[in-house]
């Protein structure tokens, strides 16, 4: 009796109603509004003369001022570099954590990884500003030790932006990778070792391929997060860096052009969705091949 009553569609299904209502009204609908507004010349409610137009998109595509395309490329470039560096930094940590047998050690490393995650983007960007600015910790120390004659340009450029972004998003990479590496059967590695493969070869030919789904999932997450970053590029990038999210914020607060901001938003959304779809395809293929092997 109990087994049957549990399997039947249950009244518990109604518990989804509040979430569904919240998401329709405050997530789906707003994104629809944003997309719709991007095709209007002005706010169609307050301005009766507003008309349908594609001019916001034409403005982006024509790019007569020569900044929009650069902003798009800068966004993608910063996202890509951040992702690659976060992967290179995150993988050793994740591997270490996944293979750690001591409970205490594991908990300590986990706290070290999660603690920065819980300190907020603004706070961490501030921390990097105090480290990397001309009179910051690193330049001060290097000058004192006589290693450099004048402060290195560590901030107000893409370098500083990427450093801070990596620091902010690497915990996401580590947590994603740790889960996947932890699930790899260690006996596979032991088998490779006992068959004569060295440690490096075992890693390259057994561990690394098996952690590919985690690498893809973590990379996608970090890329999606870093192309939508606003605080860090605008504080660390100075006048050198202009990304799509910064452009959007400019259009809303300084130029007060919500329709054009909406068009830029739709473009950023399309980029994000493309990544999500591509990632799902790759992931399906990778796990499919593994299933067959």
């Amino acid at each position, binding site marked *: 009796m109990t087994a049957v009553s549990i399997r039947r569609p249950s009244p518990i299904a109604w518990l989804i109603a509040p979430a569904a209502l919240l998401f329709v009204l*405050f997530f789906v609908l*707003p994104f629809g509004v944003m997309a719709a507004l991007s095709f209007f010349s002005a706010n169609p409610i307050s301005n009766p003369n507003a008309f349908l137009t594609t001019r916001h998109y034409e403005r982006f595509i024509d790019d007569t001022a020569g900044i929009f395309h650069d902003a798009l490329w800068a966004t993608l470039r910063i996202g890509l570099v951040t992702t690659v560096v976060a992967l290179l930094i995150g993988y050793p940590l994740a591997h270490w954590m996944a293979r750690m047998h001591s409970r205490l050690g594991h908990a300590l490393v986990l706290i070290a990884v999660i603690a920065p995650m819980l300190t907020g983007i603004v706070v961490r960007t501030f921390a990097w500003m105090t480290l990397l*600015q001309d009179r910051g910790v690193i330049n001060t120390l290097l000058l004192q030790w006589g290693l450099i004659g004048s402060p290195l340009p560590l901030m107000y450029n893409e370098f500083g932006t990427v450093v801070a972004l990596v620091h902010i998003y690497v915990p996401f990479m580590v947590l994603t990778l740790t889960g996947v590496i932890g699930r790899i059967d260690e006996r596979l590695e032991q088998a490779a070792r006992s068959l004569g493969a060295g*440690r490096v070869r075992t890693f390259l030919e057994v561990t690394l391929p098996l952690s590919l789904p985690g690498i893809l999932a973590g990379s996608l997450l970090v890329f999606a997060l870093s192309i939508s970053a606003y605080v860090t590029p605008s504080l660390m990038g100075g006048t050198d860096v202009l990304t799509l999210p910064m452009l959007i914020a400019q259009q*809303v607060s300084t130029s007060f052009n919500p329709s054009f901001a909406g068009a830029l938003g739709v473009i950023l959304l399309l980029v994000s969705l493309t990544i999500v779809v591509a990632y799902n395809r790759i992931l399906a293929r990778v796990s499919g091949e593994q299933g067959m092997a």
Partner: protein
Amino acid sequence: MRTSAAPNRRPFDLGRAAYLGVNGLLLVFLLAPIAIVLVFALNPTPYISFPPVGVSLRWFDKFFSSPDFTNALALSLWVAACTLVLSVTIGGACALALVRGNLPGRAFLTPFFMSPLMLPAILTGLALFQAYLLAGIGRPVWGLILGHTVVAVPYVLRTTLAVLHNFDRRIEEAAAVLGASPTRVFFEVTLPLIRPGVFAGGVFAFIVSFDQFPVSLFLVVPKGETLPVVLFNYMKFDLDGAIAAASMVSILLALAVVLALERLIGLRAYVKL
């Protein structure tokens, strides 16, 4: 294939030492910036300078005596508390419905409710701003809270789903066999068992809201800004110890939350999420 690493089987294991050394450096990279904030919060010089010259609480004093900061802190705490309650209720219920409700299209619904995590948060903020603009309701605090709730629900969902998937349903069946009504099973068996997951999600929801910037950016009004927005605007012009003190207040709050979290379900469970 063979790279310049790890010679094997030696008394002193160079590969192992390098591996630990690299990981040690990476931990320093993760933690040093947070430690440095503490140094600047206590350093009394009027601008950020290194090395520190002394210890003082003047920046904490400045932070707590400035109404701009304290009002923002109060608003952030209020919004985060509301977000916590709303997202725990809504997200917890949603997770139960997804796992137990036998809903059609579950494979689509779970990623749908998780999607605020993947989509740029600044766009969620922009879209809500546009919707409120079109609806002519201005930028009310409840609108900000609901915006935060949308991005916080996935965290509650993730932790609760993880608990529900590890859940031994025979415990519920045992309760039912022993004569408990479905309602009683739900309140006395199911709910207590998923509570750690829901609470852990709530802790994340609180942090996500308290540190939230991109969703808040377009949804706050002048003089009614949350702490991260106030700090951001301050940092554009001034980089002094007050920011470090404010950062320390946030970090201490986060630390308290991590400890509460460890108490609640043990940190190890987090890796599996």
